[in-house]
């Protein structure tokens, strides 16, 4: 885990060239404005920073608010987040459990059960220019598994126990690609080979319970990429696997991303994973984005106290024998987000000014953080 930081830093050198005038507009706004006006200008810039980049992004999420209307009240699981995924890039979404990462990914695919979940007015998810919020179920179905795929955390239960893995991969192909039985079966074997399963011709006729966890996750990935999607959402794809397998799966994802030119949205609570494979990172806390930026921004120059806390709680080879730092307390309940800064109660540098609700402040170069201190 510890070399991740180093790896992240090393990679950053290569990547800093890639990020460009991405948000020069935001930079200019932040720099030129008078200090007093800086915050409000930066605010609006930050909101548009993610989208105003380059051409049309592959996926643009704007002001997504996914609320759960429960008997206990309204749980604002995702409360106004905006971000974009560009073609071919890997975007990491990090945060503790319960901060809204998974709800975000399910909302993109329209998979949240309604009721109790509701996407509030103004929420927008646009994929290649098509609006997905409020789209017909039929159109969403044609998109799912075909242009946007998703892999889940638990490979043990993500496969149907009564069918062979080959049947399950073939089913996707037959549905979305209208392949006949034989062609789909052949393609399933090829896909199993591509995701690195040995003896694919034999494995294709095996049932999920005959495969190990890592193998099953590979099968899941094979199903997800069967129709060559443009976007793959991976919701904690390695959490349930042991460490050596984790690395293999991440490598496989990176390889497939390159080979197929697909974008990957990687949801995880593991910063090591992020450092290893992501281009850009979004840090979520309490249903909001608290910081976003490139991998080296986040790892080398974290701006938000929460990000710093997450980084400090990583074990490090450099300083052995030190007690691991941790962020005190837990994520508050989405039913009652705290007033003002949502991180205030756990923040080591909380003080005056934090009782105000925090806005996302643009820091230039596509960076943003939700803390009033960073702007000043």
């Amino acid at each position, binding site marked *: 885990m510890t070399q991740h930081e180093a790896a992240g830093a090393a990679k950053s050198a290569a990547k800093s060239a890639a990020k460009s005038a991405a948000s020069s507009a935001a930079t200019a706004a932040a720099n030129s404005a008078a200090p007093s006006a800086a915050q409000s200008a930066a605010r609006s810039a930050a909101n548009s920073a993610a989208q105003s980049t380059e051409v049309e992004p592959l996926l643009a999420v704007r002001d997504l608010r996914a609320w759960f209307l429960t008997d206990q009240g309204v749980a604002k699981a995702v409360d106004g987040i905006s971000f974009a995924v560009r073609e071919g890039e890997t975007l990491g979404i990090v945060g503790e459990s319960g901060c809204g990462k998974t709800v975000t990914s399910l909302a993109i*695919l329209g*998979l949240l059960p309604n009721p109790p979940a509701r996407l509030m007015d103004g929420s927008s998810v646009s994929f290649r220019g098509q609006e997905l919020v409020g789209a017909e179920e039929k159109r*969403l*179905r*044609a*998109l*799912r*598994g*075909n242009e946007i*795929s*998703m*892999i*889940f*955390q*638990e490979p043990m*239960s*993500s*496969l*149907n*126990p*009564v*069918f*062979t893995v080959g049947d399950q991969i073939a*089913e*996707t192909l037959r*549905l*979305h690609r209208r392949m006949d039985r034989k062609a789909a079966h052949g393609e399933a074997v090829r896909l199993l080979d591509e995701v690195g399963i040995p003896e694919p011709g*034999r*494995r294709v*006729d*095996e*049932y999920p*319970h*005959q495969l190990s966890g890592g193998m099953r996750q590979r099968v*899941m990935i094979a*199903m*997800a990429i069967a129709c060559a999607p443009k976007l793959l959402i991976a919701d904690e794809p390695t959490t349930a696997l042991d460490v050596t397998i984790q690395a293999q799966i991440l490598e496989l994802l990176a390889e497939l991303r390159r080979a197929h030119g697909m974008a990957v949205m990687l949801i995880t609570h593991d910063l090591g994973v992020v450092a290893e494979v992501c281009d850009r990172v979004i840090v979520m806390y309490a249903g909001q984005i608290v910081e976003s930026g490139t991998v080296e921004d986040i790892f080398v120059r974290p701006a938000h106290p929460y990000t710093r806390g997450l980084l400090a709680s990583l074990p490090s080879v450099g300083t052995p024998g030190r007690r691991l730092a941790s962020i005190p307390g837990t994520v508050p309940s989405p039913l009652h987000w705290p007033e003002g800064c949502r991180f205030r109660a756990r923040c080591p540098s909380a003080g005056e000014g934090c009782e105000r609700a925090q806005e996302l402040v643009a820091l230039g170069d596509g960076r943003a953080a939700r803390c009033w201190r960073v702007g000043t």
Partner: protein
Amino acid sequence: MADTMAASTTARARARGGRRLSAFLPGAPQLAAGRWGAGGLALLVWLGCLWVLVARLARVVEALGGSWDERLALATLVAALATVWGWSWWDAGRAEGPRRVGVSQWDLAVRAFSKNRTAVAGLMVIVVLYLIALLTPLLAPHDPALQGDLISERYVGLSGAHPLGTDQFARDVLSRLLYGARISLLIGFVSVGISVTIGTLLGAIAGFMGGILDGIIMRVVDMVISFPQLVLLITIIALFEPSIFLIVAVLGLTLWPGTARIVRGEVLTLREREFVQAATALGYSKRRIILRHLIPNALAPVIVAATLGIGNTIVLEAGLSFLGLGVQPPTPSWGTMVADGRNVLLNAWWLSTFPGLAIVFTVLSFNLVGDGLRDALDPRLRS
């Protein structure tokens, strides 16, 4: 290398020997290999059918141009012989060959089931019973409705001409017992088939869709369940002319709520499993998810319930017939036969005893198989 070659040669020789044996006595090689359930059943069916063919040759020939149920019996006879012979031939040759790669949950269940001796015995009885029911037109020594001489042939005890005696109309009890088996097994099978189909579909829809649809379906279930079934049956049968069709329909349409509840419960837990979420994320329609992903996974308890349900339905039909509300005379039914004999139990004990025993053994077999299936299909109970 030499070892494996020698082994495979002996294996091939053994397979050849097995095939030669299976050509004459299907089931014998399997029996020799210790698979007494499959082998014994195959041998039993083979010998039994051969016996029918030889002992009832004249009737078999007649059946060629006979009524539809005679021809059905003939077709069953041929099919049974061919199936047993073909299966044994294929199985004996396959014995040492490469096994299939995929081992499904069903394969595991079959393995577990075949280790359960009482359940396998029950299954053998059931298969033989269904065969007998289908072969009855060829088997029965007499016409079940044929009345003998009412003076000299009433209440004749067990004898050569009437192995199980005769009844108050001098009809042959054995023949009536055999024809009665058809009625009981048919009603049991068809009405449970109807109720399981309805129950599975409605239960799966209710469980998966939830919300209003769930509410409506489950309230209907509550309504049907809360109605006293026997009263409902008696009322409906009193309103209409009793017939086999009516009984099957009424039983089929009143027994489904049990299955619906079982399936709904299963689906409620299944739909939270990630593979259902994954299926949605892959763009599968609700219909596809219910039919292809949920129902096959919810089937295990349904199969158990259906097997036990056939036994219950047979008892229920016997009860109705006993009350005179079931199958109407002169069509024989086990329940009617027990009822017919109850007044003369002390003088002609065979009248009620044999159909009574038939009911007991049939229902017992179904219950044994049902219990065996429950053990085999539940991974937690599998040893």
